[in-house]
């Protein structure tokens, strides 16, 4: 396993465990690119920026990794993963694939470029719901609530 692959594997492990020592794997000049159309979209800089982003994510979702494939190419690592996003506000969870492109410097992660299969679905999932929608969501039903388009 290459040094970058080992760093990435450790990153995934610590992220799943919500281990704050994950920052040891991040380069001081880290940049994370999230799609601008998301409520937490934009760029995050450095380990502090990364922790800010994870805080924003965990305030909105419980995220479970279902499966994934890791590609090693050209000094980068590209992870294609299928995740379940389970909103903390009680909205229905959704499965989605994401692509993450990792770059490395000095054996630390220096860039994470995040691509969702469909950012609009995630943005809709997080959109504030009307009182009517909330009332419907609170009623037990075998049919999951559908986020407003």
């Amino acid at each position, binding site marked *: 396993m290459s040094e970058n692959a080992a760093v990435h594997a450790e990153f995934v492990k610590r992220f799943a465990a919500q281990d704050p020592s994950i920052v040891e794997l991040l380069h001081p000049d880290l940049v994370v690119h999230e*799609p601008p*159309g998301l409520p937490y979209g934009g760029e995050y800089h450095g380990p502090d920026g990364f922790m800010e982003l994870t805080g924003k994510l965990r305030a909105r979702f419980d995220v479970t990794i279902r499966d994934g494939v890791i590609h090693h*190419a050209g000094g980068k690592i590209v992870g294609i993963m299928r995740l379940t996003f389970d909103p903390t506000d009680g909205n229905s969870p959704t499965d989605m*694939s994401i*692509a993450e*492109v990792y770059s490395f410097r000095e054996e630390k992660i220096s860039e994470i470029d995040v*691509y969702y*299969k469909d*950012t609009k679905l995630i943005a809709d999932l997080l959109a504030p719901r009307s009182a009517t929608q909330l009332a419907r969501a609170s009623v037990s039903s075998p049919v999951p609530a559908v986020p407003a388009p």
Partner: protein
Amino acid sequence: VADAPPTPYEAAVKVFKALQAGDMDEVMAGIHADVVCNEAEWVPFYPGEHRGRDAFLRDVMTPMAQAYELEFHKVELLDAGNTVIGLIELGMTSRATGRTVRSPLVEVYSFTDGLISHLDIYYKDTVELAAAFPEGLPQIEVSA
């Protein structure tokens, strides 16, 4: 001695050169008959899954070329063995409205028999694309 078949990376480079040159016949020569193309549901063009080379040409490549002027600002192809990953920055200008969006995207290509048999496409932001191109694709008349 017969030439060795192209590697997936070499095959992807060839397809991209043809794409940038506008040579659709050469592009489609690099696509497997049973290709599967997975797109987001919320892109204004060719949403969802497309199966087969004919459907890929009819429902993806042809209407895309008719509706948008495309400009590749960046193409970086990563060789990952039987998978090639494209890190792309694509400019799309609607021929109907003149509106332009420049979008990063990741494309993951898998290969069968030296041909692209699966395309998995991730645009940076389908929120932006859906807002920029609400008109979507025109309906294309396809002759039998």
